[in-house]
């Protein structure tokens, strides 16, 4: 994690102390400039360009990305389609499915049947945003949401689609958005990593380390997953017999011996390592404190529907707020279990029930604390679900659907209570104001004060970007 090199535990005043301090200052200076740090051991040519300042005044400082892993159904939550109701059970017109690949629907079914949403839509809030009965709590904050309804991609399998949403490329190996932001903006906090991942839900699709990968960026920009059981951060706890006071004295001895060695070798990497041990020591205290939800009032817990004893998406939303308060740059929540190939009726009710109240509470809570305007909240899956039916009978479901689906953004300089883009009469293809994943990324970076064309990293002779070679900022949703 990147931290500004403020020394919390000044070492004893000695001649060397002054030299260490000046090394720290120099290090700070180098990091702030566009030059790489001149440490001999590192591949300084390849060292990242760091942005002491964003490219322009940011609207948002951080991101909370609520990732509905498996793919929530847009036509059942945000994208009401009366035509679907009218033609329920009829085969979809051929023109819609021409050249379309489905993931699971039998290829021999040339024209699968349209399926109306069984959920009631209603106009919500002052803005009259259309949201179905699956999300009653979210409806209370409808005026905060900018729903993008014309998202589209061509990637219809989970793993590549998640990669696309995270990295701008369906293949493995590129850095994720969180890593790009950690690299581009650094961190606001010394005590926590800049990129934190939380997980919850019913396991259906795997969650892979590559979903929070640094790709070809230096590995310090990798996301750190807070675990639901045991140590919240891997290897956080000291061995059982080592009390905190003894650990302090270990760290002190490590520092003293490292300082002596710095005298011998004059390598500033040693100073950096001394800092990292201090941070680690603080993390050992601050991380358990961070994840200790018992510190929250019962009212707050009830508001989110959180229960400190049981891991849940609600707990993670509350944790997200705590992380946001502490200055973590990119917080990503994965909620598993949205892949409703069958039993969509029950499964989507279960999934929505688990996320609806906590998300609404998160937005209200952020707002109340004055954090919403500087925190961009993103909601969405790797794709939507087909307006046509998969299977049949009571257990009907919907297949993967990347050709037109919905996501929403809130806070962080986004205009609330609006929709942007449209799909056709069935919710099949994006038709109006189509938004690509690159456009979405460009918009997110823009809100954080970054010109997506200028956040680059030289790798293998090429300057890579999160948005690859595309991306237009969706200005219509910016408040």
């Amino acid at each position: 994690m990147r931290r500004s090199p403020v020394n919390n535990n000044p070492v004893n005043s000695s001649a060397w102390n002054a030299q260490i301090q000046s090394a720290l200052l120099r290090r700070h200076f180098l990091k702030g400039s566009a030059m790489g740090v001149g440490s001999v051991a590192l591949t300084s040519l390849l060292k990242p360009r760091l942005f002491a300042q964003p490219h322009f005044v940011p609207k948002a400082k951080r991101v909370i990305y609520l990732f509905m892993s498996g793919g929530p159904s847009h036509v059942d939550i945000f994208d009401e389609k009366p035509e679907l109701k009218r033609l329920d059970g009829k085969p979809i017109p051929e023109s819609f499915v021409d050249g379309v690949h489905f993931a699971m629907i039998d290829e021999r079914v040339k024209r699968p049947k349209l399926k109306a949403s069984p959920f009631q839509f209603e106009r919500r809030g002052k803005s009259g945003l259309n949201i179905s009965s699956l999300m009653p709590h979210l409806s209370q904050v409808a005026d905060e949401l900018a729903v993008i309804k014309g998202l589209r991609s061509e990637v219809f399998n989970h793993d590549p689609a998640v990669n696309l949403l995270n990295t701008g490329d369906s293949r493995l190996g590129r850095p994720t958005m969180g890593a790009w932001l950690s690299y581009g903006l650094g961190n606001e906090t010394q005590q926590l990593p800049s990129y934190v991942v939380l997980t919850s839900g019913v396991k259906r699709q795997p969650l892979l380390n590559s979903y929070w990968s640094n790709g070809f960026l230096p590995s310090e920009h990798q996301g750190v997953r807070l675990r639901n059981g045991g140590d919240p951060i891997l290897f956080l706890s000291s061995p059982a017999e080592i009390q905190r006071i003894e650990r302090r004295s270990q760290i002190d001895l490590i520092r003293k011996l490292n300082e002596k060695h710095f005298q011998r070798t004059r390598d500033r990497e040693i100073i950096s390592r001394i800092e990292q041990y201090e941070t680690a020591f603080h993390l050992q205290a601050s991380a358990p404190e961070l994840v200790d939800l018992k510190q929250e009032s019962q009212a707050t817990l009830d508001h989110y529907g959180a229960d400190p004893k049981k891991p849940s998406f609600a707990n993670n939303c509350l944790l997200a707020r705590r992380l946001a308060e502490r200055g973590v740059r990119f917080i990503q929540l994965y909620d598993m279990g949205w892949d409703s190939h069958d039993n969509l009726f029950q499964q989507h009710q279960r999934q929505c029930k688990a996320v609806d109240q906590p998300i609404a509470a998160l937005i209200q809570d952020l707002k109340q604390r004055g954090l919403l305007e500087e925190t961009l909240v993103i909601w969405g899956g790797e794709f939507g679900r087909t307006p046509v039916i998969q299977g049949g009978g009571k257990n009907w479901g919907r297949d993967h659907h990347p050709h037109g689906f919905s996501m929403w953004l809130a806070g962080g300089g986004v205009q609330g209570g609006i929709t942007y883009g449209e799909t056709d009469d069935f919710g099949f293809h994006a038709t109006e104001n189509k938004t690509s994943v690159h456009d979405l990324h460009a918009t997110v970076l823009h809100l954080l004060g970054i010109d997506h064309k200028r956040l680059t990293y030289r790798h293998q002779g090429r300057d890579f970007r999160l948005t690859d070679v595309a991306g237009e900022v969706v200005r219509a949703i910016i408040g």
Partner: protein
Amino acid sequence: MGVLSLCSISFAEEVQFDRDIQPILANRCFKCHGRSEVDRKAKLRLDQFESAKRVLLKSATKESELLARVKSSDPNLRMPPPETGPPLTSGEIEKLEAWIQRGATYTQHWAFIPPKKPSLPEVRDLTWSQNPIDRFVLARLEKKGIVPSPPASRRTLLRRLSFDLRGLPPSPEEVHTFVQNSDPASTQKVIERYLNSHQFGEKQAQVWLDLARYADTTGHAADKPRSMWLYRDWVISALNENLPFDQFTLQQIAGDLLPNASVSQKVATGFHRNSMQALGNNPRKEEFRIKGIVDRLDTTGKTWLGLTVSCSECHDHKYDPLSQEEYYQLFAIFNNVPHYGQKFGVRGPQLKVLSLEQREEWDRQEALIARAQSELNSLKLSGNSSAESKWLEDPFSYFESKHEWKYRFAVRGEGDRFSQDTPWGKGNSLQFEGDPESVQPISIKPGGEASFTLSVWIKTRSKLADIVSNYDWRGKQRGFVLGIGGQRDPGYRAGHPYVWLSATPNPFSGIEIEGSKRIDDGKWHHLAFIFEPGKKAQLYIDGKLDLKSRVKGTIPARLAQPNRPWILGGGYSNSPSPNSYFLRGKVHDLRLYSSVIPNVNQLGAVSPELRRAIIVDERERTQQQRELLRSFSFNLSSKSKRLTEQIQRAKEKQDKLQKKAHTAQVMEELEEPRETHIHVRGDFEVKGKRVQPGLPQFISIPESKKNPNRLDFAKWLTHPEHPLMARVTVNRIWAQYFGQGIVRTLDDFGTRGDVPSHPKLLDWLALELIESAWDVKRIHRLIVSSTTYQQSSVLRKDLQTLDPDNRWLAQFSRRRMTAEQIRDLALSVGGLLSLKYGGPSVYPHQPQGIGEFRDATAGKWKMSHGEDRYRRSLYTFWQRMSPYPSLVAFDAPSRERSCAQRSTTNTPLQALALLNDPIFVEAAESCAQRIINKFSEPEDRIRFAFSLILSREPDREELDYSLKFLKRWSGNNKNSSLKIWRSLCQVLLNLDEAITSE
């Protein structure tokens, strides 16, 4: 930008196109004015003189347009335009100006011209150099007026050599001896010892395995385990045996295509089988096959060519002279590997390979076979006419005489159903009509604990029929059935022979066998079945034990005796009389014996030729037919029979070994090459122009073949005149020791890559590698024996301004160790490290819940026991989607893709891992135990801890610090001195010095 500031030139020096100008053009201009037609603006190409001269040269009336544009302050005129990038620096403009003044000559990019052996440069200080490397380095330093550093201390040098060559710390004893003996020859001796240790290959393998993206799982969502470790072991032993680098390359790219390829050469091709493979219910198989090839080209480019070939997957390379068409010509070379299976079973070719012990057992059996075979051959020469004549009288009496009861279904009679259509051309066969009337009773009833052997000839087109049966499952009267098609039970295939044999009439308890070959082709086939209770249940088809039968269940200790009679020509279905699965076809010569007839197979082994030789009249037998008969009858003589049985047994043992063998993933070549097309914009479904295999034009190698295959490609790579491969290779080896390459972009020697700091040294090393017949250890030895390498790493103040990146090597660079080295160090000082060499990957301890959200197919982390918990880190099971956490913490890559150089970071998570990961805690405790056991005085113990972990003695202050620490905590914690010493060992293990090679 680092590149240019580093090589700012004085104009006393000649401007060189490739060093000074090309990087400017490539970085700042080629994007819009390069090779790519699609991106070209204003129809201007700056990468070749002819098309560029109109803007480069000044005319009578005009200044150079290019210079005017780059100098302009008008945003509408300035190049590059503001949205593309900042203006050129004044240094860059000066260079361009100087170049244009001298006529703007283009030369080929330096890396695409084969290296020439440079003469050794003159140096003023003649005492400094130990070998030619030093001459090149010193010449440059002298020119820059920089003084090199003094040599590292003996103990630092030994620790450096030990970690760099074998990845492990030196023992305190080694340090002691080495420090005592300052003779330079002793350094050389240590270098040789390390170069020749097993640990050398293990250490070097890590770098290669990163390039090879070696992992033990398939990657992507499914991330299934895949047996790859044989390839990893191949790499280690190839490095240890110092396999010449051209061979090392040839075998990995095309070992399978070498003439008479050995198993080891085939295993080597695992290099390119490390590509990830998507598995599952719906990934498009072809799409991911294509992605695999793209990955192979990317990896080949990084590993051997130092080129970013992947740029040309979708369009012509913007900076280097590789067109999209050439990319797909290379693609065509790699496009012919078979791709099998569906869904979760998609895979490339595999090879069964024996482990070392298995190989030894195999060789023992092979020797046995050879001995028996040679005895047989000499017997054959001496002849054995009596056995022959006896056998000819009645081919079968020979086996039968010894057996008590036997049953022979004599086909004698008259009527339409009898015919002389038999496999022998004599005797009769009986036609079965697929009706109840055709069924024949069998008068005996095998069963109980008795063995039996059944033999029958059959000619049928029935896909579903029972032949011999007393088996009625509906009536709960199970026994034995031999038939075809398995009564259409799930999983049974039409036309295949099968046997069911149950120990009890109800429920089923016994064995199911399904033969691997169809017999419903309307030709004569021989079926035999041998049952020896609890021991043997074997199906023979056409005289051969059917090794590929599908077998379910176990061999029962008895055969049930249901109340259904044995019949021929049909089966039962809930009734005491035959009423189902009637046979349509001919039967000849059914026999049943009350024992195991080991040679029963020979009844059917009779080939059609031999059958003809038997039935033809003796006087008409040809010489060939007589030979055939002679050798067959000879095989029946008792001595030869014994030998034949010996061979048979040995072969069975070999078969069993083969079944237990390990699987290697290998490359193979399809007989019919696939068609290759350009994929328009890299989309695998949009096929453009068809292309043939071919090699890039910009590298001209004599004798390159037309229509090259993988082997030709590998030969092209390893050709001594190839400009890239040797340079890329020595540069990568160099980077292992100095932390950065002579060219710092290890995997990009193209026009956008780094400019070499010591171009002549690079060429000298490259030619040294080529001319030494690709002796890789020679390069390692040269580097570590150089004065340059053996300098002190103490950072010099003057160098921080003169050469902050240490490009000119006036000192050695401290380097944090790799993840593997750090873990191996801890295990080693704890005395825990196992030096077991090679073998399947291991599962050392990792915290619960790692990879908990991986796919169900991905398999569990099955913790290893015993010494496998403490193996060298490179043997850790490499799970791409959830790699071993304490390796990841220290920048080990996930190996989804090829990685030429790891990043080196310094994070608090590393501090947490090193302080708290149970394996590091255990190592510290074990180290503490060693210290306590060896010494009783605290100061001695501290000294020993320092020498174990840091390879040096503490100074007074360090001793005092440590004593103070111990005193403070022993007061609190009287009972556990081990824990206090563990605390101190932890401290030492967490020092920057401990995990840094200095």
